[in-house]
């Protein structure tokens, strides 16, 4: 099958002014191949030759990659050149052959001018290229995060690993781990990762080693070394001795393997770790005799040296907060706040999960209720867990979503609502509740409990108390800020909004009717409200009440009313 019109391609390419065609395109298997020479560019002293390869998908892309490659293996030391000598270009999308071809050649020209002639460096950091491979047909991944410690060049020791999960990666089994801590051999300090308590309480099941190289173990600062012998000038001999001693002492089966992590500095002294897996009986070291000044072997004295052996690179990821949430969070005033959520039903569980997904670090919850199977369809609870206390399940869910959030029960979790109501007239209890609630920066009351709002409104609170609730059918959402909650919410529900309390859902066998609305109905308004709340915090806007209303039959518009 012919994928391309070769004649047409050759004709278009022949019109490009800054190249000579050395060899026209011709079919080579499923590819088209040609050879060109780039000339006459300002600052380009000699012509630059490239092999060109066109893939069958061209002019469409294949996944994220261009389906046309310009290749020159001599340029490997320049920026944005891949290990096979292909230039990394990204051009506009176009299904039109001529437009795409001309754009790709223009892009090659731009690369030559920027990186070959002017030798520009990019402002953003790019990781070195590592050929991450499965080990005995299984992938292994290791995620690390920040530690409060400055590693010194040549420092090495043990790494405590906690298993995270096993799954499927590129159609093969993968075993995922977190680095829990580093233990330096020289000063015996345990250097803990800054994961949340939830993860730090996981049991250590595996061991690894680390060596902090400081320098990047890569050729051209971009391609990770592929052979142990290339690391000769990077790894101190005492680390090799450490490996040798371990191998000698170790009583585990000899084909047991472990990861060795190499640390180096990237931008702004940030540390990155890459990892290789080694079998204990195949350590990449060999003994060699120590020679005296005359080159004579010293009897019984040996040292360890790296051998000529392929490095089995495995997967590491920097999952520190900055990178895990780099693509978007709520503002710092929310993510750094100590937050309490009262009531984690539909709205409350969505608020909790959204806060965590948006980077919140400290969440406390209060709820007396249990999750029934019929709660699953419009909340953040799972069917697979069966019947469950809402708090217990949500705490688990939230921890599963972020390794940087600490989620706890608030005092007397399930009795909070009944106690505070029973004691609300007692001055001493009021003071205690004020003290207890004022330790939070933000409280979301999603309990939808009028009596509780009434009680909370009586307290002298310095915290930001935010009430969120909806009308039946999730037609409206009401957001109110302390101290204007109780009367405002009452007026909204009784007088202003159309809260239909007749068309309710009556589950079979349940004495208490509930509102009708889907996950989509509720979450649409909840997300809008959270976006507005975030804006108020971010832009330091006054915390004024608002409502959101689906104000037309066909959901075409959400009306925002600021009070």
């Amino acid at each position, binding site marked *: 099958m012919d994928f391309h019109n070769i004649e047409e391609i050759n004709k278009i390419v022949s019109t490009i002014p800054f190249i000579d065609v050395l060899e026209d395109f011709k079919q080579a298997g499923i590819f088209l191949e040609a050879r060109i020479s780039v000339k006459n560019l300002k600052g380009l002293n000699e012509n630059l030759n490239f092999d060109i390869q066109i893939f069958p998908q061209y002019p469409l892309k294949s996944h994220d990659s261009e389906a046309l490659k310009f290749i020159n293996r001599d340029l490997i030391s320049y920026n944005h050149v891949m290990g096979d000598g292909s230039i990394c270009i990204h051009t506009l999308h176009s299904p039109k052959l001529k437009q795409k071809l001309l754009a790709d050649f223009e892009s090659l020209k731009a690369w030559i001018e920027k990186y070959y002639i002017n030798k520009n460096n990019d402002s953003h950091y790019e990781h070195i290229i590592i050929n991450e491979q499965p080990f005995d047909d299984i992938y292994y991944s290791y995620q690390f995060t920040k530690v409060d410690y400055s590693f010194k060049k040549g420092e090495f020791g043990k790494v405590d690993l906690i298993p995270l999960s096993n799954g499927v990666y590129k159609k093969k089994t993968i075993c995922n781990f977190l680095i829990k801590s580093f233990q330096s051999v020289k000063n015996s300090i345990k250097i803990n990762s800054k994961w949340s308590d939830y993860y730090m309480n996981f049991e250590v099941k595996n061991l690894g080693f680390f060596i902090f190289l400081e320098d990047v173990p890569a050729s051209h600062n971009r391609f990770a070394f592929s052979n142990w012998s290339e690391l000769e000038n990077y790894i101190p001999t005492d680390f090799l001795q450490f490996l040798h001693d371990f191998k000698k002492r170790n009583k585990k089966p000899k084909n047991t393997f472990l990861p060795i992590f190499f640390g180096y500095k990237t931008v702004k002294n940030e540390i990155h770790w890459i990892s290789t897996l080694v079998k204990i009986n195949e350590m990449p070291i060999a003994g060699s005799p120590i020679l005296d000044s005359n080159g004579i072997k010293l009897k019984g004295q040996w040292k360890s040296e790296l051998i000529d052996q392929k490095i089995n690179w495995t997967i590491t990821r920097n999952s520190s907060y900055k990178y895990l949430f780099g693509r978007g969070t709520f503002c710092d005033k929310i993510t750094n706040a100590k937050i309490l959520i009262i009531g984690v039903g539909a709205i409350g569980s969505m608020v909790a999960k959204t806060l965590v997904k948006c980077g919140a670090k400290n969440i406390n919850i209060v709820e007396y209720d249990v999750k029934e199977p019929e709660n699953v369809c419009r909340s953040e609870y799972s069917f697979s867990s069966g019947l469950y206390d809402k708090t217990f399940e949500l705490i688990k869910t939230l921890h599963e979503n972020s390794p940087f959030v600490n989620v706890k029960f608030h005092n007397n979790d399930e009795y909070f609502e009944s106690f505070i109501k029973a004691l609300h007239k007692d001055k001493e209890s009021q003071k205690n509740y004020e003290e207890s609630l004022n330790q939070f920066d933000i409280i979301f009351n999603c309990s939808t409990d009028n009596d509780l709002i009434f009680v909370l409104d009586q307290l002298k609170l310095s915290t930001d108390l935010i009430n969120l609730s909806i009308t039946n059918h999730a037609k409206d959402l009401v957001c109110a800020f302390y101290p204007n909650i109780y009367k405002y919410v009452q007026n909204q529900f009784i007088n202003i909004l159309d809260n239909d309390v007749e068309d309710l859902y009556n589950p079979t066998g349940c*004495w208490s009717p509930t509102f009708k609305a889907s996950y989509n109905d509720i979450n649409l308004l909840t997300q809008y409200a959270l976006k507005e709340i975030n804006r108020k915090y971010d832009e330091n806007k006054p915390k004024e009440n608002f409502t959101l209303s689906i104000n037309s039959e066909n959901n075409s518009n959400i009306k925002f009313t600021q009070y």
Partner: protein
Amino acid sequence: MATDKSQHLQQVLETHKMLHIEKLLDKYKKTRTKVKEALEENFKDKIYNPINSGSYAKHTAINIKFDLDIVFPFKKDSFKTLEELFDEVYNFLYEKYKNEAVVKKQKVSIGIVFNTDGDEINIDVVPGRELNQEQYNNDYNLNLFVNSLYGLLAEKTYIQTNIQAQIDLIKGKSDERNIIRLLKIWKKTNAAPYKSFFLELITIKAFDKEDISGNLWEKLKSVMEYIRDNVNKDSFTLKDPGNSNNNVVDTLDNAEKNNLSNKMSNMIDNIENYSDNIKTYFPVNDQFEDKNMDRYGLKDSGIIAPSIPNKSQQFG
């Protein structure tokens, strides 16, 4: 059912009148007299006759939040500095009442909160010093010590004022007083962060500059429109009648002025769009709203139905 806005506002004013709390007010007055006499006794020749000031003296008080203010005009030569004067008055009041009240320094006053038979009685004592020796009885000009940040003034400075001129400004202005009371009710019930004195002056200025007429809602709306349209203008000023150099609008920064303008705009729009919204901004004091109750004490027995949530039921 739509709410008659003017009728509602009349009810708001009615239920916030001081006459509903006469017994409490008596306690206040007695306590004020006690404090006044104690200060007169202690400072004797150093002071002129104290005057009652504040919202009660101006007839703009509301029964949900008020205190009684007394201004003590001290003679020019009574103390070396205003700070010394302020501290002396504070020290005297603190020593005198520390076992029965909380005494604390405020911006220009000393606040005393007595707890009398379960009622909190708030008395504010404002010590002032005549501006010119032996001139107080002629011009009523006073300097007040400013204890903390007060608008644009730096900490620990002083401010010139004339309490009598402030009281005189509002005399006989009953329309203005009603609007001021409504705005104070809004301020208190909606936790709006504006000073009562600021709301007084801006209301009076609105009446001066605009044709404010019609029913109660129309008058209130006109004042709110005036605030909306003017408060954030660079040229807008609010002169303190007690000190023409004191521009009271300076107690707000630009962001706060814009917020107030937006707030007025939202309030007008929301009330005009849905009259029931007036109840959010200007709620009736339901403690004194008993005339609408039926014989069982329920305002609307129609909302009661067994096993069905009523309209106030929130969901989520």
